[in-house]
């Protein structure tokens, strides 16, 4: 006959931690799927306005980004409080846009150059004077396809 061991259940069995990594992996997969590797560190405050007639920006590699907004607190001493432009990782001025576009165009293949879009990611409190200047520069450079990046939502949230 088999021996019957008398089970001593005087202590609680240790909680199995085998499922802990599963939970963490789920969070990890969520982040891997829903995010993109950050291209640029934002040196400006950038709260985008809402719009409902938006279209998705596909072809990420054919997009150049121009960020506009007030510099972050730490940099306000150097750059002031007015809205500035950020190209790639540096705070720049309207006159630098020409060189920026030329550099972006040079890095793409010949036949794709006409499909380059410029994504204007402008803070919602920025004034139109600066945006108008940027558009004028873009027109001079013949970069006519632009996209005003906005979040999808109702425009009533823009007024405050």
């Amino acid at each position, binding site marked *: 006959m088999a021996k019957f061991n008398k089970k001593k259940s005087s202590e609680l069995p240790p909680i199995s931690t085998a499922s802990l*990594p599963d939970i963490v992996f789920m969070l990890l997969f969520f982040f891997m799927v829903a995010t993109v590797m950050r291209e640029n560190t934002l040196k400006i405050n950038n709260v985008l306005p809402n719009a409902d007639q*938006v279209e998705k920006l596909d072809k990420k590699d054919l997009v150049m980004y121009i960020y506009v907004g007030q510099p972050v607190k730490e940099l306000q001493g150097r750059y002031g409080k007015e809205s500035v432009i950020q190209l790639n990782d540096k705070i720049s001025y309207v006159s630098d846009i020409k060189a920026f576009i030329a550099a972006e165009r040079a890095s793409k293949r010949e036949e794709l150059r006409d499909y380059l879009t410029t994504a204007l990611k402008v803070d919602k409190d920025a004034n139109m004077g600066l945006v108008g200047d940027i558009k004028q520069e873009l027109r001079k450079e013949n970069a006519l396809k632009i996209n*005003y990046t906005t979040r999808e939502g109702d425009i009533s949230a823009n007024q405050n």
Partner: protein
Amino acid sequence: MARRASPEVNAGSMADIAFLLLIFFLVTTTIETDTGLNRKLPPIDDEQTDPPVIKQKNIFTVLINGKNQMLVEDELMELKDLRKAAVEFLDNGGGTGEDACSYCKGKRNPASSDNPDKAIISLKNERETTYSMYISVQNELVAAYNILRNRRAEELYGQSFAEMEAAYDNTQSPQFKSEKLKEQIERIKIEYPQKLSEVQ
């Protein structure tokens, strides 16, 4: 000697590895906003004087001042009424004879636009206008065009204009880059062209 059951692998270190990866991704990625309003800027050519005489009634002026107030056709208007006013203007079809518009459903008011392909919306803003107001106005105007295009596409082809464009661009749809669909899209674009001019 009976084989000992192989000892259980301690799962605690798996969690550590997973946390490390998670922190790495949290730090190096962002949830990027990649939606927006697609627009086309007009090319710069040496600002020729106003092209062929455009009748005043064919121009819909929208002015935004530095205090974010909006003047439409010289009258103050709230943002919520802009969409409807723009649709009324574009779809008016007040023209007669060769300017007549066979597909417009508007009031045919002779004081408003003749035909959607002659109707121009002119947007002017000042340097102090905030970007959010500008985007709201652009949104409403683009919405007016989309409403009319979608309605026309439904009448002609039974699907909305947005669906047609999506089918054209979608690699998985059977109509991907089909010539026939392209022609249909072009037709709708010709019937309701986006003539939105932003004067400086």
